[in-house]
């Protein structure tokens, strides 16, 4: 048998950067990409978007929310109990122990707890060691020290330390994408006990959304992106409309078109590619910012994996009233709004002329087929990730999981952990459970996770998988974005 010949969605060159999800995430950042782009084209330009002074920080009035003291003790205690029993807590604090973010509850009231966390971390550090995790009473306490911040996850869920680390990493990147890491570091160099919440007002909302989003979307678990199903000719029409409309504009680094958390196309500067986790942050931003739908925006966005030291400027706008796809044109020029606005109008005109808007709408309106519809009666759901392109495909969710999404997420987490546990990574995983049989397979080219009916015959599994791979292979042009359009 030669399953390995069938590798749907594989391509020699990839649209996205393809690092392993669990590869070390520390300092794997491409730095100085921004400088390179700027210098290449305009060597004289020395303006740095980040050197705004933060000297006025000290003079700023302290207006941190005052503690409310009128709550009765009793109510407080009930609140505390509920609070303590939450599934997953996330905390962010500075190295000095100043509260920055708590998923639930008011950080100021939890100051004592942040103090405990800081003490634990610094106590271990004083022995030249790093605190990674504590397990107690079925709860995982996971610490991530990313100077100048400490991030802590406290989870009662069945999640591995690695998966929690990965989530903390996303939160750190979310904060960095709003401020840039160089600014973060600079702030704390100047004032160790700075209250970062002042600079992060409004970002809590993005972090909250990111946590829920990461829970529900397999994209985060897999470190991959799902594409909107489109015929390859339409997709390349769309890409070329973007390329030709932007051809005379300097310094556009990425053009991204997305809809409904799926990628339609991505056009990039030749030398630079985008990491899926940066793209996830963009998805998160677009999804949690309603106002993009109605007005055009000009937003500074730092993509930490691309260059954590500076901002790209993003022209963000939905294509039109009758097509809910969101276009982002990211550039290094801070004054390019009007140029890009005009480019967007040209793009929309071209897409309209080529019937691409219709094609996008059609695909958005029509849900993906579920497993039964595509002839796989024994399969309830599956995830397929093509490693070489960092893209994944999933069919639409069918009963029983449409009502119990959490069950599905937990199953995939379990499977994923099986393949990626650093102590003993498995290549193949099959488990028959009371309610379903679950399967995972890690090959050189892809990862495949399948939820079967509980009574599927083990002997049939191999045949079904082969059929499934062939089914995807036949449709790979639609399901995956296999070209690599560049400016």
């Amino acid at each position: 048998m030669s399953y390995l010949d069938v590798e749907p969605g594989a391509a020699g060159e990839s649209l996205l950067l393809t690092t392993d999800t669990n590869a070390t995430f520390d300092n794997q950042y491409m730095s100085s990409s921004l400088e390179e782009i700027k210098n290449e084209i305009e060597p004289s330009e020395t303006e740095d978007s980040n050197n705004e002074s933060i000297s006025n920080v000290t003079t700023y009035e302290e207006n941190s929310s005052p503690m409310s003291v009128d709550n009765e003790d009793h109510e407080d205690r009930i609140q505390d109990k509920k609070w303590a029993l939450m599934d997953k807590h996330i905390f962010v604090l500075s190295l000095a122990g100043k509260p920055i973010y708590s998923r639930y509850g008011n950080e100021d009231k939890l100051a004592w707890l942040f103090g405990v966390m800081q003490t634990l971390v610094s106590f271990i550090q004083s022995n030249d060691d790093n605190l990674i995790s504590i397990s107690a009473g079925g709860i995982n306490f996971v610490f991530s020290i990313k100077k100048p911040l400490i991030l802590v996850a406290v989870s009662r869920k069945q999640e591995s330390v690695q998966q929690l680390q990965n989530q903390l990493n996303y939160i750190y990147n979310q904060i960095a994408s709003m401020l840039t890491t160089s600014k973060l570091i600079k702030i704390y160099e100047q004032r160790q006990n700075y209250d970062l919440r002042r600079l992060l007002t409004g970002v809590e909302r993005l972090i909250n959304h990111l946590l829920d989003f990461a829970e529900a979307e397999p994209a985060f678990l897999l470190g991959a992106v799902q594409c909107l199903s489109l015929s390859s000719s339409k997709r390349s029409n769309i890409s070329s409309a973007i390329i030709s409309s932007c051809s005379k504009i300097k310094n556009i680094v990425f053009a991204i078109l997305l809809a409904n958390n799926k990628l339609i196309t991505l056009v990039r500067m030749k030398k630079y590619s985008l990491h899926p986790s940066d793209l996830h942050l963009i998805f998160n931003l677009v999804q949690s910012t309603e106002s993009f739908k109605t007005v055009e925006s000009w937003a500074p966005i730092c993509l930490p994996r691309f260059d954590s030291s500076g901002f790209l400027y993003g022209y963000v706008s939905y294509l039109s009233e009758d097509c809910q796809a969101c276009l982002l044109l990211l550039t290094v020029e801070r004054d390019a709004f009007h140029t890009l606005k005009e480019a967007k109008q040209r793009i929309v005109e071209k897409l309209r002329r080529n019937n691409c808007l219709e094609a996008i709408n059609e695909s958005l309106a029509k849900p993906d087929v579920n497993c039964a519809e595509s002839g796989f009666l024994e399969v309830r759901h599956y995830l397929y990730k093509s490693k070489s392109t960092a893209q994944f495909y999933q069919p639409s969710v069918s009963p029983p999981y449409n009502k119990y999404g959490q069950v599905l997420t937990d199953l995939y987490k379990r499977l994923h952990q099986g393949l990626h546990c650093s102590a003993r990574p498995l290549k193949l995983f099959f488990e028959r459970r009371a309610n379903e049989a679950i399967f995972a397979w890690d090959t050189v080219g892809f990862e495949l996770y399948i939820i079967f009916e509980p009574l599927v015959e083990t002997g049939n599994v191999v045949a079904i998988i082969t059929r499934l791979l062939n089914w995807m292979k036949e449709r790979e042009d639609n399901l995956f974005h296999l070209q690599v359009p560049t400016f």
Partner: protein
Amino acid sequence: MLQLTQCEVISNIPVRVNYDLENMKTIIGKVVILGHQGVGKTSTCTRYVEKTFNRHISPTIGASFFISRIKVLDDYVKLQIWDTAGQERFKAMTPMFYRNAKAAFLMFDITSEASFNSMKNWVLELRRNVEQPMVLCVLGNKIDLAERRVVSRDEALAYSKTIGARYFEISAMRDQGIEIVFKFVAMELLRMSTKNSSATSLKVYNTENVNGVMASSSELEATDIGNEEIVNMSINSIAHGHTVPSRCC
């Protein structure tokens, strides 16, 4: 003497004037909205443009841009409006929005002293960095929360006077006074441009006229426009500490 310098300044205004086929004038002017986070900048814009109000609007990221075309008598004024983010972390970006702006809305929340003080800082920043004359409007938002008011009308009015701005009180939630504010800016921009283009039409729009148009608006009752305002179009005069009644020009 003073009048002369005023007129000189005004004649330098780079307002773009386009003539269309029917010889109708369209004036294009950039307008920036500044203010502390949460004072209601975006709400005011969406109220004006979309006629809607959303209590749970998400904070603006960077800035939003929209265009409003307003007919003033026989002419069109096209406002290119930048609704900026109030959060401190976006502060570094703001100069690119107020650069070359013809008008600025300085907004505060009448229930927040901090937002009023923060607005004063924006005025200082404009004064330091903006050379061209600018129509300034101070907007006190959230008058629907009158019972929680901490910035009195007199205080805001007096402050507006010192910077040569016009003061309006509005409510984005109840849609009070917003139309008038935008109309006012459109008319002021038109006035600036007419002064710029031809000397004969200099007196077409004097203050009485402006007020006359406003008085005819059905929304006058809903707004609280102070009656002592002095319209002043030059930000330069702030630096010199003069307030110049627009009537003089």
